[in-house]
C-alpha cells in the first residue's frame, strides 16, 4: 500500500513537472537510431556524412536510391531496406529541420 501510494504520487509529480512538454516523438526516436554513425541529431564527427540541415528532398531521394539499389553503398543499401518509404521521408524531414 505504501508502495502504491508512493508510485501514484510520483506519477502525479512527474506528470505535473513535465506536463508542459510535448510527447517524445516517434520520428525523433527513429532518427536517433541513425546517430550512432551520423552523429547526435545528424551533426557528424569527421569521416561520416552529416545529415543535419540538409535539404529534405535530396536526403530522401538519396535514401530511396540506396533502397532501390540505384545508388551503390557499402551499408546504406542494406539499412534503408528496413524502412518504409514513408518512414524514410519522415526521418529525412527530421534531419532537414536540425541546425547544422
Amino acid at each position, binding site marked *: 500500500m505504501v508502495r502504491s501510494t508512493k508510485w501514484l504520487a510520483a*506519477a502525479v509529480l512527474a506528470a505535473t513537472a513535465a506536463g508542459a512538454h510535448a510527447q517524445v516523438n516517434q520520428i525523433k526516436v527513429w532518427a536517433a537510431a541513425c546517430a550512432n*554513425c551520423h552523429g547526435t541529431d545528424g551533426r557528424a564527427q569527421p569521416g561520416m556524412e552529416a545529415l543535419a540541415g540538409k535539404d529534405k528532398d535530396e536526403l530522401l531521394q538519396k535514401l530511396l536510391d540506396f533502397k532501390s539499389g540505384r545508388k551503390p553503398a557499402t551499408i546504406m543499401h542494406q539499412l534503408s531496406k528496413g524502412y518504409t518509404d514513408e518512414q524514410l521521408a519522415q526521418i529525412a524531414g527530421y534531419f532537414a529541420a536540425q541546425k547544422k
Partner: protein
Amino acid sequence: MQRRHLIQGLGAGSALAGLGLLSGCATIGGNAPKVVVVGGGYGGATAAKYVRLFSDYQIDVTLIEPNEAFISCPISNLVVGGHKTMADITTPYDNLNKRHGVKLVRDMVTSIDPDKRTVKLAGGAELPYDRLIVSPGIDFMLDTIPGLKAAGALEKVPHAWKAGPQTALLRRQLEALPDGGTYAMSIPLAPYRCPPGPYERACMVASYFKKAKPKSKVVIFDANDDIQSKKGLFLKAWDEHYKGMIDYRPKHKVVDVDVATNTLKFEFNDDFKAGVANVIPNMRAGEIAVKTGLATANARWCEVDFLTFESKAAKNIHVLGDAIQIAPAMPKSGHMANQHGKTCAAAVVSLLQGKEPPQLPLYANTCYSFVTAEDVVHVASVHRYDAEKKTMLAVPGSGGVSSAASELEGRYAMAWARNIWADTLA
C-alpha cells in the same frame, strides 16, 4: 498495463493532492522526476544522455559508474593487435555532465531495493529513483572454468572481453611471447558479447605475428559448431592474409584451465598447452542484475518488454544492453546497446510524463570487424517491433554483410567509432 495504472494513478493522485498528501513524496521525486542509471557503458551512458535530451533537460539523471573513463570494447582488438593504443579507445565521461547535466557518481551499486526504489552504493550513499535503468553489461560464469576462480588467475589467463586492464595485459603477453610461441583463444557457447569479436581478434593477433613473430601460430578453440558471424568473410581473410597461421577448431568446449602451465582442458578433446592462453568464459548479465533477481532467463539474462526495456521481473526498473535476453537475431553489441539506450530513454521520459511511450521501436545494428589493420568487413541488420509477438524482429529483406573486405570500410569503421563515442558520451 502500465498506462492504465498511470491513468488511474493520476486520478487518485489528484485526490491525494487535495488531501495534502503529496508533500510526502518530495523525498522520492524532489521537484523533477529522478532517473538513476547503473553502468556507463554503451547502453547506460546513451540512456543517461538521451533521457536528458528527450525530456528537454527536465528530468534529473544520475549515472553511477565505477570507472574513471569509458574504454570501448569495439576497436579494442586493434589494441591487442598493436595497431591502436589504450588512449585511442578511451573517452572521458565529463561531457555528459558539462553538456547535458547528467550527474556523475563514480561508485559501484551494491544493492537495489525495488520496493523502496533506492540503490545503495559501495561508498555508503543511498540514492532514490523514480525509474532505474540498469545497464550492467556482462559478468563471467567462472564456475564453469574452475581454474579461473583462483586469486590472480585472470591476470595469468586473461579474457580481455571487458576492455581495460585486461586488454593491455593480453597485449603485453603477446609482446612477451617468443617467436614460434602459440596463442590460444577459446570461445564460449553463444550467446556471448560481440558474436564476431573472437574471429576479429584472431585476425588482429595473426596480423601482429605476421609482422613480428612469423613462426607463431593462432589456435582458436570454439565451443560452438561453427564460426558465429561473417563466416565466409573471415575464412577468406584467414586464407588471403594469414595462410597456415590460424588453426580453427570448432566443437571444442573448455571446461577448465591449468593456470600454472597455460593448459586448456576440454570436454572431449586432448589438453592444449599455449604460450599465451586467452580463455573467454561463458557470460551472463552483470552481477547486480542477477543479485536483484532481474536475470529471469536461465538465471543468466534479463527479460524485458521491448517497448520500454522495463524488466519483466521488477516494476520501474529497466534493463539494457548485453545483459538482456535478446530478441531473435539481435546481437549483443555496443551498437545495439546504444539503440536500447535511446528506446528506453524515450519510454522512460514518456512514462514519467504520464504519456504513452512510442509504440514502434525501429533501429539498426552495424558491426564492423577488422581483418587486417586497414581492411574491414561489416554485418548490418534492421530490427522492428512486432506488436503481436511483443518482440523485436529483423525486417525481412534488410541487412547483410560486406561483399568483400575493404579499406573504405576500414575508414567507415573508424568514423563509426568516433561517432558512436560522441553520440554515447559527448
